[in-house]
């Protein structure tokens, strides 16, 4: 079942609330404000919506300057590939190295750029952001998780990156859910294999777990929403108790969530890990379903990977 609200609308409503509560919160955009619904905040909060124009690098350096000079808390947004690939040196030095309290938001991560095509597919933003020391990286699953996360993102002090799907996602969490930044959520218990997923891949992981259950395989499903710093306790526990891992991410399998899990586990508890995600390809144009199928990111692919990972245990 899809959420009723688009993620961008949840984002904008949360930002609106934060801007009402704290005048330090400002919006910084690079001519994609309309695309993420924050354009209306320009009228609601005069002077607190900065548009840098189509100049992503300048958008990032300006944000760092605002945070450092007068302690503004900029929520700085453009598409995921442009805030990472294009403005990476600015992110690395002006935000990371300078330790500026800037909230970077990259929308349309991975294949969710859909018909904008290969140039707009953010397959490498997590890899790039992971290389920035002290950067926190978060990817919301659905509207409820994003709604609960926003006040925690605001309270977090330091460089922050959120990769955010813009449209309606599959509803995974309800109002009984309690989000804690940095703490992974175990959505289903199981001891045969652990599926560790983020973003839109969580819904696929849950579908896969249901299919596996029908085959008598109990898969644990973990949402690693905070990719950095990683909740190593939950990941290690999964490796020890399940003995096989499948990671699922809307991203290149190299250097992203899967890479992070492998890097960590190889040093403390080496177990078989199969990674689901884009296999080192450039993107291409297409609707979400087509692209997820093309890049082998569907629940059926997770089922297959789980069977392979379990077989490797023996």
């Amino acid at each position, binding site marked *: 079942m899809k959420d009723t609200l688009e993620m961008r609308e949840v984002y904008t409503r949360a930002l609106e609330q934060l801007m009402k509560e704290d005048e330090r919160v400002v919006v910084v955009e690079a001519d994609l404000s309309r695309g993420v619904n924050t354009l209306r905040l320009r009228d609601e909060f005069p002077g607190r919506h900065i548009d840098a124009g189509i100049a992503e*690098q300048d958008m990032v*350096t*300006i944000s760092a*300057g*605002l945070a*450092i000079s007068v302690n503004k808390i900029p929520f700085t947004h453009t598409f995921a590939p442009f805030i990472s690939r294009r403005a990476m040196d*600015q992110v690395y*030095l002006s935000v990371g190295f300078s330790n500026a309290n800037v909230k970077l938001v990259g929308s349309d991560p991975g294949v969710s750029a859909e018909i904008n095509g290969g140039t707009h597919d953010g397959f490498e933003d997590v890899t790039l952001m992971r290389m920035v020391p002290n950067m926190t990286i978060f990817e919301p699953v659905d509207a409820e998780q994003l709604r609960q996360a926003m006040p925690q993102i605001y309270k977090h002090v330091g460089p922050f990156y959120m990769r955010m799907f813009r449209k309606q996602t599959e509803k995974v969490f309800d109002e009984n859910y309690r989000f804690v930044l940095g703490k992974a959520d175990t959505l289903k218990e199981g001891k045969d294999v652990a599926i560790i997923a983020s973003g839109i891949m969580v819904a696929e992981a849950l579908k896969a777990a249901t299919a596996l259950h029908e085959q008598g395989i109990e898969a644990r499903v973990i949402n690693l929403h905070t990719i950095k710093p990683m909740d190593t306790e939950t990941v290690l526990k999964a490796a020890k108790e399940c003995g096989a891992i499948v990671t699922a991410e809307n991203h290149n399998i190299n250097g992203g969530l899967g890479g992070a899990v492998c890097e960590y586990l190889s040093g403390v508890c080496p177990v078989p890990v199969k990674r689901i995600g884009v296999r080192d390809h450039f993107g291409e144009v297409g609707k979400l379903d087509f692209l997820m199928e093309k890049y082998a990111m569907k629940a059926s692919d997770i089922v297959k990977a789980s069977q392979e990972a379990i077989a490797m245990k023996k």
Partner: protein
Amino acid sequence: MEKCQVESLRKFANEIRKKTIHCIGTLGVGHFGGSMSVCEALAVLYQSIMKIDPQNPKWEERDWFVLSKGHAGPAVYATLALKGFIPMETLDTLNQPNTILPSHCDRHKTPGVDMTVGSLGQGFGNAVGLALGFKMDKKPNRVFCIVGDGECNEGSIWEGAMASAHFKLDNLTVMVDDNGLQSDGRTTDIMNMQPMDKKWEAFGWDVQTVDGHDVEQLYNALTREVSAGKPRCIIMKTVKGKNLLGFEDVSTNHNTTITREQMLAAIAALEEVKA
């Protein structure tokens, strides 16, 4: 400007230059050329223009300084030491293990350094953000930023130039160290940015061109009223390696080694200038 004030600024610039030569010379290698060309600008800014308190580097009412051409860090360190922000003996620790004086300025390491710089074009972009922040909060703090002429090759300089004029940042001053050399050679051969003044004017800045080694011209340019809403650009015609004996306007002086004898001779020559 009073004659004695001019003399005092010249002397201060001379002291900055000598301490900078000593600072880099003690290590034996460093960015001499671009450090030598900004000594007068730093002297005028720190002595006569900027609101600062060496005892309280983070003073809320201070004016901010960003050295976007970050490799001239040693000249800034010499200035900070002479003003009392850091102890003079610290200058001998440039680039040594655990130093507070890295080649390129770091806001977390050095008292008096307002912004971390090093990747060309970025410090200026930060200065734009700093100035915009003060504007948003209606604070009187001003921001001064030195960029290199070679640095102006960076596209990000022009993104910042565009934004500064658009946001009407009349609290921002950029000083272009137009010394005519970049690492690989003459700027006119490597990547010609001339006419530099017309470029900044076209981007909406109030532009003045001065002799960057003439403290009086610098002072006048920095104190002249500019039209409200316009950011101020001062093109400083300078000489890379200015007054560094044997290295002045030499195309290899961007980052060069120097012997102890050469260092002492260069400083001795500047003692004579003072006399």
